[in-house]
């Protein structure tokens, strides 16, 4: 056979690069910004919006005055140029964060409490962290109370020991009936608190910090304080309400339904009115609950009603087989709830609970309407009405919005992350 003459290519031609319009940045721009006439128009409109915002904001931001005593001094320094007067933030920073009455020598206490709060929350938020850290989370509320309100540490220690005693008693009896164990725990704690009250009274100066009354709290600290406490207290209450609403006992069910629907049907501001002007009528004449406590009660109720609805959604999402399986292996109500139903239902409802809680933190600004001096209340009241800073709206409200944005945005990002995390667990 002679040589093979047929034309057969022996090696592949190297790939040609795609046409310029089909690769790299050009392709991306064509597909994402100018794919149709309508898209092109939208792109130009968006670019114009972005441009006009940048043009308006940049000089205002860059020309910002950081050092001035009053708003007039600020305008003098700006000399007619467009510019922000950030000096107000610098001068009034402590007021914005701590309120105007919190003693300035004690600012380290809320600061420390906030840092410790993050540490205490870490093991709850991230399940990878060692479980032993939860012990600190359990101690934290008592520690934070001592740090923020001051007084002798014995009060906090006594309260903590009471709770610890309750848990120990509960553990001891929990092999029997759940109800009896809880009852014993409650009695033990109350007995301890009565005894502890006398012990605390004996030595009021032991490791004592300067006492700061509730009405001196203010600024963003007050928002965080109200938000955190209301959320923490409302989660157990909300779960209890949800279980009550699901229960087969008509009287308990209707108590829960009426409570939930009533609270969800009225705006928070009316509940705050109740806290402000009415709630005091319902307590014995000689007691005087301070306003923060009354507001906290109403906020806890408010948040609990919403959390109850979220948890109810989680309970309803479980298949009936889970309830039947728990019954069929002979678990009683508390056991099946604790070991089978709630762990699954709560897992489904965590993102919802986080969303509701972010909403609660945002709603703490409403207390400014009943003349409490939270972040917004400080801005609207003492700062804007002072002659020094009259008329500096943008910088103050912008700063308040930025603070809330940072906190709420990171919490909602966390909730999205958690949602993805839980989804991978399911597979």
């Amino acid at each position, binding site marked *: 056979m002679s040589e093979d003459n047929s034309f057969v290519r022996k090696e592949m031609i190297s790939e040609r690069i795609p046409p310029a319009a089909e690769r790299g940045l050009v392709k991306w721009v064509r597909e994402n910004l100018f794919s149709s006439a309508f898209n092109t128009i939208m792109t130009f409109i*968006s670019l114009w919006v972005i441009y006009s915002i940048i043009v308006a904001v940049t000089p205002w931001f860059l020309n910002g005055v950081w050092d001035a005593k009053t708003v007039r001094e600020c305008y003098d320094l700006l000399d007619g140029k467009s510019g922000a007067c950030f000096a107000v933030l610098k001068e009034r920073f402590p007021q914005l964060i701590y309120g105007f009455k919190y003693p300035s020598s004690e600012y380290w206490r809320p600061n420390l409490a906030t840092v410790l709060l993050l540490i205490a929350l870490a093991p709850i938020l991230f399940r990878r962290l060692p479980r032993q850290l939860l012990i600190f989370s359990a101690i934290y509320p008592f520690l934070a109370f001592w740090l923020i309100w001051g007084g002798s540490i014995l009060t906090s220690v006594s309260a903590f020991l009471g709770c610890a005693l309750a848990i120990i008693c509960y553990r001891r009896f929990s092999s029997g009936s759940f109800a009896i164990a809880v009852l014993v725990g409650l009695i033990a704690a109350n007995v301890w608190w009565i005894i502890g009250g006398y012990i605390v009274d004996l030595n009021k100066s032991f490791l004592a910090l300067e006492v700061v009354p509730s009405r001196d709290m203010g600024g963003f600290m007050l928002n965080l304080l109200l938000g955190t406490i209301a959320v923490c207290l409302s989660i157990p209450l909300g779960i209890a309400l949800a279980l009550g609403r699901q229960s087969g006992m008509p009287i308990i069910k209707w108590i829960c339904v009426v409570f939930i629907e009533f609270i969800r049907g009225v705006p*928070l501001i009316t509940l705050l009115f109740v806290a402000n*002007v009415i709630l005091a*009528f319902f307590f014995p004449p000689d007691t005087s609950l301070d306003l923060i406590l009354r507001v906290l009660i109403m906020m806890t109720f408010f948040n609990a009603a919403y959390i109850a609805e979220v948890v109810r959604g989680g309970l309803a999402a479980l298949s009936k087989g889970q309830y039947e399986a728990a019954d069929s292996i002979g678990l009683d109500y508390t056991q099946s709830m604790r070991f089978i139903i709630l762990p699954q239902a709560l897992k489904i409802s965590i993102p919802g609970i986080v969303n509701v809680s972010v909403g609660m933190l*945002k709603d703490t600004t409403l207390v400014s309407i009943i003349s409490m001096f939270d972040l*917004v209340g400080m801005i609207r009241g003492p700062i804007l009405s002072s002659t020094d800073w009259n008329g500096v709206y943008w910088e103050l409200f912008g700063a308040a919005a930025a603070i809330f944005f940072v906190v709420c945005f990171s919490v909602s990002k966390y909730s999205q992350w958690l949602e993805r995390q839980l989804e991978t667990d399911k597979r």
Partner: protein
Amino acid sequence: MNTSELARRDKFQFSMLLNDKRYRSYTFQFFALFILICAMAYLGKNLLENLAAAGLNISYSFLGEPAGYDINQRLIEYNSQSTHLRASIVGVLNTLLVAFLGCIAATFFGVTAGILRLSNNWIVAKLMMIYVEIFRNVPVLIWILIIHSVFLAFLPQPKAFRGENPEATMLWDAFAFTGRGFYIPKPLFNDGSFIVIVTFILSIIGIFAFRYYARQKLYSEGKLLETRWTSVGIFFIPTLIIYFALGSPIGLEYPELKGFNFKGGIHARGSLISLWFALSIYTGAFIAEVVRAGIQSVDKGQSEAAGALGMRPNFIMNLVILPQALRVIVPPLISFYLNITKNSSLALAVGYMDITGTLGGITLNQTGRAIEAVLLLMLFYLVISLSISAIMNVYNRSIMLKER
């Protein structure tokens, strides 16, 4: 085990109240009720004692007394000699007004932003994401205050409209946007306008009847009737004919600059406008998320299947995607409408006189009738919420997935 033993076990014993599942729930409920009654009695006793100590009583007679304060934004006649009851009604109407306007605008913002977030235009989608995140994560009260000060700062005062070369001009000589509020033309109803309105309502009913007829025709005979232009025709033609035949009975009263201020027309105060705008743009961000989730919840296979059947894109959207997406969108949408109504109570912050501002604000402070006023206030919001959620339940049942 003989029968007598069984019978004895079934006989009621007191220990069964705790140990037998059949009776235990009665024990629990009895205790719950007992504790509830005790708590109520305790609170009621305290209330009565406190009221007696303060020399107060529960009485609604204050509603009949003259209010003595002015309300500048009102839908019905009111002056400072009117009763507190009338002031409250003005407040109720103002609440409903801002809630109604807010729902419409929030739906507009939300649907626009939700659809644009799914746009294949990268920059538009990102802009909308920024809008949604910024507005969702900052308290509505701060937005209301910011937007209120934006309106005050950027819109011209009425005096800017004066003179030969005014700094600001009216839009089409009919709309004036000032820092004191918006001035818009006011319709004047002369003789015969009633007939025009009735014709208009009848023609809207006619459109629905025609569409129903067209659908019946389609289902029974397979004939596709032209509906779009016929509907437009029914909407405009009869009303316009009657309107001109009766000699234009409905006129417009334009706002005019008189001295330092505008006269005539409808004056929507700055507080109403900023509250309306803030509530709707804030809630719009939430609605955008719901709309996006609703559209994304429809499986891609649905639109592909519809396309495989040869449906055109607008049919796919109207007949396949939207009905399924709406099932996801509508229930949260309605609860956001409810939220707007409840959030409108923040009107207090900008001085808009809604029910919280009149009954829960000035009336409460003037008369000192805190318990009565707050109870009435809560009752009003409860009635609104419960009636809306009743409607929602009916709707939910009607669109519930019917599995066969």
